[in-house]
């Protein structure tokens, strides 16, 4: 009996999940509703079976997510009987922060980065699982599986702890917290192959369908509700598209595709070669932008 590479990735992730839970007081899973979160949640169920998942899910909402994401989120929590905490930055609600008037950088910083800090502080979580993978972005290639954050939630790439073997140093001082990335060594195609193998439900937006879109700043933006203000010359048309990543709908580009099933997505990925995050507006704000967000506590 030899293990396939998916078996190995699964075993490694479960090992990380168990180690993190064993060595923290109040863990939480940062649930972003995307495919990586779906895989992470599935792995958490496997890791602690037959006991229930021993931590809640936290969704940091921005009020600008695709509607299908929100309904999928609520159905998932209901179906699996897991505790779901939804946090919306009250300051953003009061100020009506949105990507149009305030720009994508401020929108993301205030809703997501500040919102996440608020939620972690409020619930005194000392360890947060994230679904980030090292293959997504160049700065992630060097991030640890267990990554220490200061009491102010900042990340210091200069003082990362060396990570050897399968041994993780989880020690921290009061106020400090850990971000843990069990999917560090997975690639996008691994995630889809695992979703197929394990029949993990994902948000239908990943599959191609005819959707109302318009072209803006080089991206195909789906018109998910009537809050999207048309600029002069913009025109809504229907096109067969799907999403490779999910975020705030005005900031997430769709890709033209006819892949309507997991198998077709895998086939498409084998051919298409554009890195996944290229469709995300927030990553293009500045050079090295993901890294800057990480310093500030995004993820």
């Amino acid at each position: 009996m030899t293990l396939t590479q998916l078996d190995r990735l699964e075993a490694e992730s479960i090992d990380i999940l168990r180690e993190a839970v064993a060595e923290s007081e109040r863990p939480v899973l940062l649930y972003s509703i995307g495919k990586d979160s779906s895989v992470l949640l599935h792995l958490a169920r496997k890791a602690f079976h037959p006991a229930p998942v021993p931590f809640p899910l936290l969704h940091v909402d921005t009020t600008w997510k695709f509607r299908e994401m929100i309904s999928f989120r609520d159905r998932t929590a209901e179906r699996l009987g897991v505790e779901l905490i939804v946090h919306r930055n009250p300051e953003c609600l009061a100020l009506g922060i949105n990507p149009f008037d305030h720009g994508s950088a401020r929108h993301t910083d205030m809703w997501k980065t500040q919102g996440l800090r608020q939620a972690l502080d409020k619930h005194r979580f000392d360890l947060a699982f994230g679904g980030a993978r090292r293959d997504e972005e160049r700065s992630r290639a060097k991030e640890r599986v267990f990554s220490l954050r200061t009491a102010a939630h900042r990340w210091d790439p200069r003082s990362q702890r060396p990570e050897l073997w399968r041994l993780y140093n989880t020690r921290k001082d009061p106020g400090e917290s850990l971000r843990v990335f069990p999917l560090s060594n997975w690639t996008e195609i691994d995630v889809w192959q695992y979703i197929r193998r394990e029949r993990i439900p994902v948000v239908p937006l990943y599959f191609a369908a005819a959707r109302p879109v318009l072209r803006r700043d080089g991206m195909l933006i789906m018109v998910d509700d009537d809050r999207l203000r048309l600029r002069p010359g913009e025109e809504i048309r229907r096109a067969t598209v799907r999403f490779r990543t999910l975020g705030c709908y005005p900031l997430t580009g769709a890709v033209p595709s006819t892949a309507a099933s997991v198998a077709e997505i895998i086939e498409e990925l084998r051919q298409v070669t554009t890195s996944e995050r290229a469709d995300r507006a927030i990553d293009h704000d500045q050079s090295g932008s993901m890294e800057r967000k990480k310093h500030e506590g995004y993820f």
Partner: protein
Amino acid sequence: MSLLRFMTCGSVDDGKSTLIGRLLYEARTLPDDQLAALERHGMDFATLLDGLLAEREQGITIDVAYRYFATATRKFVVADAPGHEQYTRNMVTAASVVDAAVILVDARTGILPQTRRHTEIVALLGVRTVALAVNKLDLVGYSRTVFDAVAAEYSALAAALGITSVACIPVSALHGTNVVRRGAQTPWYDGPALLGWLESVAVPADDPAGPFRMVVQWVIRPAADFRGFAGRIVGGSVRPGDRVVVLPAGLPATVARIVAFDGDLDIAVEGQSVTVVLAEDLDVGRGAILAAASSACDVGSEFDARVIWMAAADLVPGRSYLAKIGARTVGVTGSDSLRCNEIGGTVVRFDAAVAYEPYPVNRDLGGFLIIDRLTNDTVGAGLLDRVRPANLRWQTLSVTKEMRAALGGHRGCVVWFTGLSGAGKSTVANLVEQRLNRTGHRTYLLDGDNVRHGLNRDLGFTDADRVENIRRVAEVAALMVDAGLIVLVSFISPFEAERALARSLVAAGEFCEVHVDTPLAVAEARDAKGLYARARRGELPHFTGIDSPYEVPANPELRLDTAVLAPSAAAAVVLDRLLAMGVVTFSGPRAEPRE
């Protein structure tokens, strides 16, 4: 589809970045946007491997970078430890997680001392499959003679280090020769291109032979009637019905079930994360090891080990750190000083027994992290070689400490004087001893300066030497207490940790810590031995109070304020205390004479 994790090592400018970039590029695994960035940079492959902003700004690399690519037959994880001053630490980190290594040399320079160093580290961490890429062959005219000489020298070196599988490949990373495809420039070479080698080498983890071992990480108890031990199998395989032993306790048990999400398993193998239910109702906790009963692993607490030190501050022999081994965290000390990026043999002592296997046999049961208790940083990595035989036994002696004390007429005790140089420790200790001697007590005075002339002649004043200095004196003092003496110890002893050690070596009620408390300014003004003046001139490095710290005792038995107490009054305070402790008596014919 299998998975190979490999690392690349080379000195700066050997062409490592160019080689990996070329591999990713030619294996057609680069996404369009990265390809576009590459073209913007004039096809400089090294730019592909950039990662962190700070690194780009400072031109240095901080960490190990992980890259992912796949071919039709295999998936690859490349661990790249870029070269700079932290190179040893990064290489060790990368080597701890890979199955194979690609070592680069520049064809023009051949095997360098660094090449040997890289190979030693790779071998030390247990990587047995290595390719030597002899790069920049274009710059020596694709010379077979040059290549053959380098290959022969390297093969001998690798074999001597126990590397079982070595391939030497002539390469030009810049021109792509023998990287992905065999090149026309080297018709005399009949081996595989580098990628072909990577696709074909055996993945060691695919062979789950060997006895069963599992690390228990977590106990799953959803209800009173279910107790599952969750963990990773780090050796062999297991089936329901197998006899196992729970270590380090040594309890025998039988595997009842292997529980998984999709139903129970008939067998589980090395590399899997599983949940095992035992037939017996045993108290197994996080950190326990389950091992095949027929071939259990050893348990021990003192080992010969090799340690790789990764922190700026040296390893201090005898100082207590934390060790993370398997799923346990225990206290650990090392016996030898090590500097940053140094690799050395040392004796490690854990403060609890651990189940282990020698590192070359099992990385998961023989490798451990060393963590600083104060900073929480990972400061070192250790590899266990062998347990040290517990052949040092206590010989039972017929005459006891109590019998010796009875003969002397009083108990033994340590009176530990600590304080700055020139505080008055020796003056007060000397007076106390005089009075004790006159009243018929058997004493000895261990003075810092005097002991450094003999027993501790070999020690200097670095933190490490100070720790050892105190350790020896503390041990000697403890022996003298055992012999029934009142031992007056007069040492600066600036560190709380070592004073605590001295206290721990004798019984409660046998230790009297006396802080001779004199402000630095006062001690420096006295400067009876002229030491402060020399220290200020920089002639005495590591001088306590000047450029080495004095940690003030938190809870001494006595604090003598020499600003208000004359030496004879201070001595009287000490004697009163010893009287109160029941150590000394001033009665009968030996009563204290009048002064």
